[in-house]
C-alpha cells in the first residue's frame, strides 16, 4: 500500500491532475461565498455581459442575466454529486454481482454473465432516454438510470478478479475451516479486490459525469432552475455567436474536470498495477 502511494506521488502528471481536481471541488464549494451574486438572481442591467463586467460578474452573465461564475460552480457541484453518488451505486451493485457470479461459478455465473453481455450489447443511452421519458424527469430517475447502466463494466472486471482469487490457497483454507460462501465473499474476496475497485470507481466518476451532462444537454437530465455542467453547455451552445463565454466557461470546467479525473484514475491504475480488461 505504501509502495502504491509512493508510486502514485512519483507520477507528476497524476499528482498535478489530482491537485487541479481537488482545486475545482474546493472552488465549487467555497467559491460562491466570495461572490455576492446568487445563482438564480437575474441582473437585468447586465444581460449576456462579458466576463469582468461590474457587479462582480467575473465570468460574465448568461442570457437571463444570471451570474456565470456562481452558476457554473453550482453546476459543477451538481455534476460532481451525481458522479460520486451514481458511481457509488454502480460500485456496490457491480462488486456484489461480480463477486457472486465469480465465486459461485458454474451455471449461475454463465447466466449472470450472459445477462451482462446482453445488456452491454444495447446502446444504453437509448434505454436511459426512454426511461426518463416514460417515468418522468427527476433527479432520482436520473441517478437510478445512470447507476443501472454504469455497473456493468465493474461487474465484469470484479468477476474476472474473483475467478483468480477463488483459486488461491487462503480461500481453500477458509472453505476447509467451514466458512460460508457469503463470509468468504465478504471477508476474503472483496478485500482483495480493493485495488481494482478503487481504480475503476475513480475512472467511472468522469464517465458518469459525462453521461449525466450528455443527458442534461439533451434536456433529459437536471431540470431548470437547477443546472449541471451539461445543461449549462447546452444553454451556451445556442449563444455561441453573440456570447461565446456562456459556453466556454462551463465547457472548460467540464473538460478540465473530466481530464483531471481521468488522469487521476490512470495514475492510480499504474500505481496499484491493475491490469486493464
Amino acid at each position, binding site marked *: 500500500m505504501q509502495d502504491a502511494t509512493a508510486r502514485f506521488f512519483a507520477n507528476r502528471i497524476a499528482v498535478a491532475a489530482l491537485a487541479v481536481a481537488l482545486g475545482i471541488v474546493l472552488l465549487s464549494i467555497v467559491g460562491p461565498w466570495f461572490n455576492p451574486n446568487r445563482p438564480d438572481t437575474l441582473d437585468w442591467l447586465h444581460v449576456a455581459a462579458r466576463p469582468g463586467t461590474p457587479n462582480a460578474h467575473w465570468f460574465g452573465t448568461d442570457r437571463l442575466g444570471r451570474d456565470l461564475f456562481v452558476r457554473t460552480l453550482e453546476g459543477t457541484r451538481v455534476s460532481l454529486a451525481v458522479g460520486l453518488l451514481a458511481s457509488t451505486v454502480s460500485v456496490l451493485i457491480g462488486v456484489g454481482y461480480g463477486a457472486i457470479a465469480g465465486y459461485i461459478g458454474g451455471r449461475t455465473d454463465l447466466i449472470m454473465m450472459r445477462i451482462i453481455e446482453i445488456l452491454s450489447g444495447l446502446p444504453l443511452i437509448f434505454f436511459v*432516454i426512454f426511461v426518463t421519458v416514460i417515468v418522468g424527469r427527476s433527479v432520482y430517475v436520473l441517478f437510478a438510470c445512470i447507476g443501472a447502466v454504469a455497473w456493468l463494466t465493474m461487474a465484469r472486471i470484479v468477476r474476472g478478479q474473483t475467478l483468480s482469487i477463488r483459486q488461491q490457497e487462503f480461500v481453500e483454507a477458509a472453505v476447509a475451516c467451514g466458512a460460508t460462501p457469503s463470509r468468504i465473499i465478504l471477508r476474503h474476496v472483496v478485500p482483495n479486490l480493493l485495488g481494482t475497485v478503487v481504480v475503476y470507481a475513480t475512472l467511472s466518476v468522469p464517465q458518469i459525469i459525462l453521461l449525466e451532462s*450528455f443527458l442534461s444537454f*439533451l434536456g433529459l437530465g437536471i431540470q431548470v432552475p437547477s443546472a449541471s455542467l451539461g445543461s449549462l453547455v447546452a444553454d*451556451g451552445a445556442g449563444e455561441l455567436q453573440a456570447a461565446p463565454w456562456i459556453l466556454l466557461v462551463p465547457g472548460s470546467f467540464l473538460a478540465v474536470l*473530466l*481530464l483531471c479525473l481521468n*488522469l487521476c484514475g490512470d495514475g492510480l491504475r499504474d500505481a496499484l498495477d491493475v491490469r486493464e480488461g
Partner: protein
Amino acid sequence: MARLTAMVRYLMTRLAMAIPTLFVIVTITFFGMRAAPGGPFDQEQTLPPEILSNLQTAYGLGLPVWTQYLRYLDSVAHGDFGPSFKYKDFTVSELIVQGLPVTLTLGATAILVALVVGISIGVLAAVHQHSMLDHAAISLAVLGVAIPSFVVLPALALLFGIHLHWLPVAGWEPGQPKFLIMPVVALALPPLAYIARLTRGSMLEVLHSPFIRTARAKGLPLRTVIVRHALRPALVPVASFLGSAVAAIMTGSLVVESIAGLPGIGRYLVQGAVNRDYTLVLGMVIIYSALLIFMGLLIDIVYAWLDPRIRAS
C-alpha cells in the same frame, strides 16, 4: 472452404436471430410508450372532446391496445411505419428517408476517420516509442477520451466558423461536404483517441513477440513487418472495441446533429419520445436497432478475419 461455409452459416443464424430480437424490442417499446402517462395530442390548450375523439379514431388510438399492436406489426411487416403524430403531413417512413442518409453519412465517415487516423497514430506512436510523436499521441488519447463532443464541436465552430471563417458554423446543404467536416471531427475524436491508445498498447506488445523478431531477423524492412505481420494481431483489441465505438458514435450523433443543425434522424428520437409521437419513436427504435444488429454482424466478420482462433470455434 469448409471454414467459409461455417462462417456463412453462422452469419445466417445471426441474421435469423435479428428478427425475433427486433420483434421483442418493438413489443417492449410499444407497450412501454402506451404505459407512459400523456398522449400525442396533449397540448397546453385541451382539445374539445369531439375533436380529440375524432383524432383518436383517425389514428386508430380508440381501438384496444392489442388490436393497435397487431395492426402496427402488420403495417411494419409491409414496410409502412405509419403516420407521424406531430409532423402532421409526413409519414414516419418519409421522415426516415429524408433524415437517414445524413445520419448515415455522418456516422460512417466518423467511424472511418476514427479507425484510419486512430490506427495510424497508434502504430506510429508504438514504432517510435518515447519520441515526441509518442508523447503527442498519448496526450491526444487522454484529451480526446476526456472531452465530450458537445464541447469540442462548439469550440471548433467558434474557432473555424466564427473567427477564421474557414468553415460554416452550422447548417446543411446537400452535396456540400464542408458542412460535415467539424461534426465528423467532433464525433470521431473520442473513439479515435481510444483506438489510438488501444493500437499503441497492443502494437508494442506484438512488436516484442518472437515472430516479429524472426521477421526482422530475416531482413524484412520494418514497414513490411508491420503491414504484413504485426498489424493484424495488433488490431484484435480494436475490433473488440468497435461495438462500443459504434454505439458511442450513434449516441454522440444525437447531440452533434442538434448542435450542427444537421437534418438527420437523431432529433426525432428524443423529440418523438418527449412528444409521445408513438409511431415516430417506434420507427426510430426499429431503425437504430436494425443498424446496431447490422454493425454487430459486420464487426463479427472483421473479428473473424483478424483472429484465426475465433474463426475455428
